[in-house]
């Protein structure tokens, strides 16, 4: 299924010099090399493939335009990743209205009886985190769970639990108060846990 297109692997120095010189051959190889990881990052902000394509184009162009500001002693991938994240967030701010609101978060939060006890039994899972790599079904399930969150919950969760940003940083990026950011992350985590629980209990 995976088409192995053996492309020339560029090293960081080649990339930086090639982008600075606007070398079209290097830029083509650079696109081959970085489209996949960048696209993965971008799809956390929009699920629509044509929007993601637009953000990818814009991200690559920004990387080329900003390459002069890149500090060469640091690693280029986190720098490119940040540009993609910022572009994703900017896109969301512009297109908020377009976002879907199909998932009801409440349907997948834990349920409690009137006296505050769990409505249904809570089971443990036997899972090794490596399974996400080994077992593409689990990785797919998890990816779907995150993707199905409404964006106002998905984006804070992605920034915290996938990108590892601090609450403060997330709040200022998204224009939210810190307690709001925390609440959304918490509820998003509950939702993802519940989806995984259904998966583990059903398999």
């Amino acid at each position, binding site marked *: 299924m995976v088409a192995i297109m053996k492309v020339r692997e560029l090293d960081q120095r080649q990339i930086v010099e090639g982008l600075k010189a606007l070398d079209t051959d290097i830029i083509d190889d650079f696109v081959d090399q970085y489209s996949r990881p960048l696209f993965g990052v971008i799809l956390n902000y929009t699920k629509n493939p044509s929007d993601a394509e637009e953000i990818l184009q814009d991200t690559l162009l920004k990387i080329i335009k900003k390459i002069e500001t890149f500090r060469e002693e640091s690693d280029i991938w986190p720098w490119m990743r940040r540009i993609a994240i910022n572009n994703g967030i900017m896109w969301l701010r512009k297109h908020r209205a377009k976002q879907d609101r199909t998932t009801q978060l409440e349907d997948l939060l834990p349920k409690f009886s009137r006296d505050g006890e769990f409505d249904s039994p809570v089971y443990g899972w036997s899972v090794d985190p490596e399974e996400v790599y080994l077992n593409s079904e689990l990785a797919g399930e998890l990816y779907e769970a995150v993707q199905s969150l409404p964006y106002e919950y998905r984006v804070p969760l992605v920034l915290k639990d*996938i990108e590892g940003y601090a609450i403060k940083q997330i709040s200022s990026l998204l224009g939210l108060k810190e307690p709001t950011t925390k609440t959304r992350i918490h509820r998003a985590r509950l939702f993802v846990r519940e989806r995984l629980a259904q998966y583990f209990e059903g398999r």
Partner: protein
Amino acid sequence: MKDFFKCQECVDLLTDYLEGSLEVEVKRRLDEHLAGCAPCINFVRTFEKSQDLTNRLREQQVNVPREVQERVKSFLKVELVALSSERQK
């Protein structure tokens, strides 16, 4: 005056609990509840596990359709022409 936490309160406080930001007294009461509640213990463990797994999505890569890559390349070629003529000014 309520002395005991219910499962629901534990679940509500879980993110704060795991990052260690609860007040001492609240944390003590939550620990007390956890010590005697099997469902909550399972919940805490699976909640943490779920977070670990989510973190693994960091390296998730998706396939970029060939035609998307080609379109991106042609888009960049056009932009580069504009960019280099700008720079020559």
